[in-house]
């Protein structure tokens, strides 16, 4: 028997939209640009995967005949998006042809058999714990920008390290850490229940998975989250996502944090500093965005220079409890950190021209960022 279903256009559109990022990748396996549509009981499940991130969405539907088929994800999404009917029907015909009816329109779309679609990974429902969507979003927003790009680093840095930790006071925190080899961001927030499954070592979630979690977190107050040995599981309402974790180790970031002296600190107002950095970046060479920081007890003098355009200079009031120092930084790194910080002032520990500096804000206690200088 072949599948026949009636669905709400609006609901189907939303679910298909959420899969486009996963199914849109050009790959070698043709069927991965399709979505799997399975009709059972009173619902239709739509699945997309790139073998790294798999998402399964459930849509309420009138199932007139159970069955399954796969259809090209993008084309189906476009058909549903352009349709003006409130309801759509899908019927699987011979040779994997699917007839779609939407209002006055009639489509025949070539599908591929459901049996050829990769099976969706099993997960352990008992390992899931509730986490506020806002918390996950906050952790991701403060670490996402410093994830390494593909092929950019020899280390396992193209994902976010997620760690759980029990603090001395007995409270539990969830941490996310990312680095591209030149800088590092860390954000931690207190959580109610310990995520026992995240061991000291933590797990690494690939960039794409982090992006998808961010989307899940956006529209949901509470997410069910679980970390298993090889996968992360996120559940919200009618959607389930399974992300394959990255193998290998994250470099020893704690060793680096412990090695940074905190005595020589620069205190400066965040917003003027951010705006000034943006201005300096107008005059940097594209590859490295070098901005010179000249610091003394009372001020920070920023300058940048581009061989092709010219140069820029700015002076900001600041407080520094070390000897005057001059060093260089990639201006973009500072802009990205200052943008995510929620505070009026920031404190930056700067020790030498070649040692890592530490950016923090007392008003945004869970966050810290480490930035390596540039050798000028």
């Amino acid at each position, binding site marked *: 028997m072949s599948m026949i279903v009636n669905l709400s256009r609006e609901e189907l559109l939303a679910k298909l939209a959420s899969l486009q990022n996963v199914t849109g990748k050009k790959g070698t396996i043709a069927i991965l640009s399709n979505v799997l549509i399975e009709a059972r009981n009173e619902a239709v499940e739509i699945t997309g995967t790139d073998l790294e991130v798999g998402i399964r969405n459930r849509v309420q539907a009138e199932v007139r005949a159970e069955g399954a088929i796969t259809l090209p994800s993008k084309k189906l999404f476009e058909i549903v998006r352009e349709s003006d009917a409130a309801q759509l029907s899908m019927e699987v015909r011979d040779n994997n042809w699917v007839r779609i009816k939407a209002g006055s329109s009639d489509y025949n779309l070539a599908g591929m058999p459901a049996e050829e679609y990769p099976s969706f990974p099993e997960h352990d429902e008992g390992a899931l714990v509730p986490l506020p969507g806002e918390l996950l979003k906050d952790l991701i927003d403060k670490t996402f920008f410093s994830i390494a790009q593909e092929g950019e680093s020899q280390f396992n840095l193209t994902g976010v390290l997620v760690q759980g930790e029990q603090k001395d006071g007995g409270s539990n925190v969830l941490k996310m850490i990312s680095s591209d080899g030149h800088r590092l961001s860390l954000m931690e927030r207190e959580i109610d229940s310990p995520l026992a499954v995240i061991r000291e070592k933590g797990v690494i979630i690939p960039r794409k998975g982090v992006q998808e979690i961010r989307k899940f977190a956006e529209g949901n107050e509470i997410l069910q989250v679980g970390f298993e040995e090889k996968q992360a599981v996120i559940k919200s309402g009618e959607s389930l996502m399974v992300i394959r974790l990255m193998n290998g180790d994250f470099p020893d970031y704690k060793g680096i944090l412990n090695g940074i002296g905190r005595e020589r600190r620069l205190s400066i107002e965040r917003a003027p500093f951010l705006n000034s950095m943006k201005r300096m970046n107008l005059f940097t060479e594209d590859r490295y965005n070098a901005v010179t920081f000249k610091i003394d007890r009372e001020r920070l003098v920023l300058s940048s220079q581009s061989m092709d355009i010219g140069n820029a200079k700015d002076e900001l009031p600041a407080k520094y409890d070390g000897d005057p120092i001059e060093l*260089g930084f990639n201006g973009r790194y500072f802009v990205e950190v200052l943008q995510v910080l929620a505070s009026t002032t920031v404190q930056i520990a700067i020790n030498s021209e070649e040692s890592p500096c530490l950016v923090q804000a007392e008003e945004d206690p869970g966050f810290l960022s480490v930035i390596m200088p540039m050798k000028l």
Partner: protein
Amino acid sequence: MERKDVNLSTLLKITERRHHPCAGARVRYDTPQASPARRTAAANISQANMTANRERRIIHLDMDAFYASVEVLDQPALRGRPVIVGGGSERGVVSAASYEARRFGVHSALPIATARRLCPEGVFLPVRMERYREVSARIMEIFRRYTPLVEPLSLDEAFLDVTGSRPLFGPAEEIARTIKELVRTEIGLTVSAGVAGSKLVAKIASDLRKPDGLTLVPPGGEREFLANLPIGKLWGVGQASREALGLMGVRTIGDLGRLPLSLLEGKFGKHGRHLHEAALGIDNREVEPEREMKSVGHEETFAADLTRRQDLERELLALAVRVGRRLRRYGVRGRTVTLKVKYHDFKQVTRSATLTAATDDEGEICREAGELLARTEAGRKPVRLLGISLANLAEAGAARQLDLFAPGHGQAKKEGLHRALDAINDKYGSRSILPAALMEGEEEK
């Protein structure tokens, strides 16, 4: 108006680059080792060119104890004192020693600690590359007043082809004299010059009467000039070759020139022909003026095709070492590594990868090239030629992002190590210090 400004700044930039001794240099690969057929052809051409060779006039200019002399220039109080530049620490090596210091037996590539022992009253100074680069740019600018054909070898050395400049400026030795005078009056330093019909002979000549020397080898007089010089003066004759030749009774370049070519080829292989030609003063290499450098690389054609993995890896390492040294000599780093593989059937493939940061480290280049090699059919198909080149070049002195997980002091250490090894290899020959994997067979040589 605005447009004009942009043009002006672009123009300024170009001028600046052109005068920067390290920004430029050549867009070329080293000549691949010639195949036997090509070698014979090349030999015929060199015979034919012997007459043409006589017409060329090449000046080799070599600054005297350059780094040390710049230090004395900047601190006149040091004049007459033994000045030793090098290392940042006791464990570094000497980069340059003034002639006063050389009297104590101090020379480049010597460990600083040894230099201190030999010359306790020496003035030990750190290397100030930036400053030397600046002075070098001004010196090269003087050279360029007399010919556009200036080929800088490093900050303190250059070849000038003045063949076409003579109608304007007089004979080559006159030009050499004028340049020496200008370097003295405008810069305040001395330079030694060699004037001859080829690069090879000009370079030997400039070394003969240092410091502040001028040696002239008249056209056609190359062979006679070389005859009484010890063979160690010849480019490409290191200690190993010298000992081997010594056993054959060869002491001078003249002795070497009298040995039959077949004997040298039997003993030294392809190096034998080079020795033979060099001894006769035959060298047809052109003076290649610098252009904006696009890539730095080297490639090698093998006598027999390679299939074994360890042979391929060994050759890759040898190439990486050469390319690394060349990058450091030009003062540039490359960010894109390209591996070229030519199979036995002359089919050729290239594979490239772009690194996070530009490098001049042979270890890193070799690692990257190894990964690229795995993406070819090398080994499964016999390999005739391998080549490594680095493109996407940046000046070594340019701003550079430091790594978080390979901390800065690690990089500084590596740079110091490279400086020391390069100094030793410059002084004692390019095979003095090699990675252990390349040492095999060195003892027999």
